[in-house]
């Protein structure tokens, strides 16, 4: 009788192969492989992305396509004979710096919330809102600077785009500030924790996106 080196009495049962359902791996208990809204205990959605995050990215897709429309108009008209560049207001540089700084503070807010340091998160949250508002105020100052130099909406194609693109971006950022205000109410009431903080992270994603969008628009207006 050969020496038994391994325990052969326990039969290795292979892991049951779970049926593929929807996209991605199935990180769910085996008895529940659907995504219904049934609030039974242990229920987890089959789709790997939360509903809030999915909607946020759909909204951002809409924003991307909106500005893709504006950008293609810009690029086509850039070749028109009547195109005349106008000097960009110097305050746009300062505004860009302010917005980039607000992205940093937003990121600190998110990280402090995720770590559960609510007191610290509150400060960064307030700083982000203040910087965002400062950016919007700065954009209005840039408009006033333009108007002071005699450059109006209808002056040239470049100035038309300058006003409309900054305005459309400002509207979207104002939406971000509104979301921030809504979320900050929760932050200041200590509603979010290291475990549950999705509104804060969604807000941060939107905010960074608006920051990136502005950098893109600024480069488009400056270089093209």
């Amino acid at each position, binding site marked *: 009788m050969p020496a038994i080196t391994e325990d052969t009495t326990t039969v290795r049962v292979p892991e049951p192969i779970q049926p593929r359902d929807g996209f991605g791996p199935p990180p769910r208990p085996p008895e529940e492989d659907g995504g219904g809204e049934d609030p039974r205990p242990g229920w987890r959605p089959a789709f790997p992305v939360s*509903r809030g995050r999915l909607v946020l990215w*759909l909204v951002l897709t809409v924003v991307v396509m909106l500005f893709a429309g504006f950008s*293609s*108009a810009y690029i086509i008209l850039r070749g028109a004979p*009547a*195109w005349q560049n106008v000097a960009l207001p110097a305050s746009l540089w300062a505004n860009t710096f302010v917005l980039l700084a607000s992205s940093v503070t937003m990121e600190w807010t998110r990280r402090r919330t995720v770590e559960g340091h609510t007191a610290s998160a509150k400060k960064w949250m307030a700083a982000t809102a203040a910087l965002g508002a400062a950016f919007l105020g700065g954009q209005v100052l840039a408009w006033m600077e333009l108007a002071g130099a005699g450059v109006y*909406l*209808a002056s040239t*194609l470049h100035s038309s785009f300058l006003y409309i693109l900054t305005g459309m971006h400002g509207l979207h950022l104002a939406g971000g500030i509104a979301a921030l205000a809504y979320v900050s109410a929760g932050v200041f009431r200590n509603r979010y924790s290291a475990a549950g903080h999705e509104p804060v992270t969604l807000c941060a994603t939107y905010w960074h996106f608006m920051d990136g969008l502005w950098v893109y628009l600024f480069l488009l207006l400056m270089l093209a």
Partner: protein
Amino acid sequence: MTTHDEHAHPELGFWRKYIFSTDHKIIGIQYIITAMAMAVVGGVLSMLMRLQLGWPGTLWPSLENIFPTGFAGGVMEPGFYLSLVTMHGTIMVFFLFTAVLTGGFGNFLIPLQIGARDMAFPLLNALSYWTFLLSCITILGALFATGGPPLGGWTAYAPLSAVPAMGPGQGDGMTLWIVAIALFTASGLMGGLNYVTTLLTMRTKGMSMMRLPLTQWALFITAILGTLAFPVLLAAGILLTFDRIGGTSFFVPAGLFLADGTLIDHSGGHPLLWQHLFWFFGHPEVYIVLLPAMGIASDILSTFARKPIFSYKMMVYSMSAIAFLSFIVWGHHMFLSGMNPLLGSLFTLTTLLIAIPSAVKTFNWIGTILGARIQFTVPMLFALGFVSTFISGGLSGIFLGTSASDIAMHDTYFVVGHFHLVMAVAPLFAAFAGIYFWFPKMFGRMMNMTAGKVHFWISFVGVNCVFMTMHASGVAGHLRRIYDPTQYAFLEPVYGMNQFISISAFVLGAAQILFLVNFFASIWFGPKASVNPWNATTLEWTVPSPPGHGNFGPELPVVERWAFDYSVPGAKEDFVMQTEAPARVESS
């Protein structure tokens, strides 16, 4: 799950239950009925157009009483005719087809067919409908604007649309048009976000993506198309608005004179830019209308052929391919805009590529009904009518998608005949098929099927008389938007054709009254419908007709199989519900 369970929802009053509802079923029905009202308006406008084209210059004193400016002196005014063209196109494309197929069937069917209790965001859904209703009211308001409705066609080409002084309807009428389309876009985007989220995250246990009915796949792809295409139209509309009220010159070139000799104070813009932006939205819009129609027709064909759909996977892949290609073909609307011939060839290539997935779908539909013992119910007749008109209209599209032949055919009735068959009649037939099919689930009663058959046969013969004849008059050179063909001597041979088209159109229009009477009378007086009157397999047929609030009983259904198990060998009946477990089928 057999009992009607209300899950402790308090009974709501009439207003909360049927008017200000967040229930997806009510919202879907609201969309369908609103779109039907819009269709009546759009249809009446087309009847007036046919009156003018069949008998140009005839005195209609009775119509002068109804339209004192449009029929000043009893004869239709040319400007009034152009506004009819514009409003008919706008109302039908946006407010009928897009609304009824995605808004109507999308809302009604998505939660029911995937096994969810409602949409992911019911309140957003209700907001989407009310925004849509507001846009309907706004576009109808354009009919009564100072100076009359807009004249520039449903495509609102610049610079006609960009300068309010260009024409009587280009002032307030055009402004209302832009507002209505912007509202419609917002409504469509709200719906689209909801559809994608619901379909991805709220499918019930066992309902994998590849077990979805094809209607659901179609609505999913359509929602993605809308999310990508509508914002571009919105961007174009914003720029257009600034041209009109802000003095900018995005779409207005320099040195443009008005008819009275006034020089316009704009400079430097590009009218073709509008066409690019519009058609970048406009061609996907064709498929926003057509894809749900394809999905509905696929499911209904399979149900009444009592056979599984032929090649389910290819149906899904071909719909995805059509959706992708629809974004790179917009230039075929602009072959005559002076584009580089090489670019024209590229757009021809991408356009003709769409023929491949379209043909895959068509052969799959034919494969589905081939050798089947077809049950010729009214929904099936309309689904077959969809396939028929999709083929006839699609084939003439090949000539228009090829730049060489399109240059001859452009802006003739050949185009009018083509797009009406393929993107108006085909989706309309699919919508009719869907309404006859799901009416029992919507209202708990059956529609009258004899009236339905009469409706189908008059409609089917009628649309072919109208739109196939238009292909012929187009080849003869009949121009697309002309008000009075008798002004052109070379069109004399088609005068008779025009009268034939007009008479056919009136008969066709009258047949739709039969449908409306059938629809509304059946809501109250139709015979009661059973849970599953068509012996179909999908989840909505497992619940009472109409389903209660929350759709399903205390437990959500569990899906065991795909949606096309018809005539399964060894099964007790010729259909197996999606909820039926495999063991129960074999034991029978």
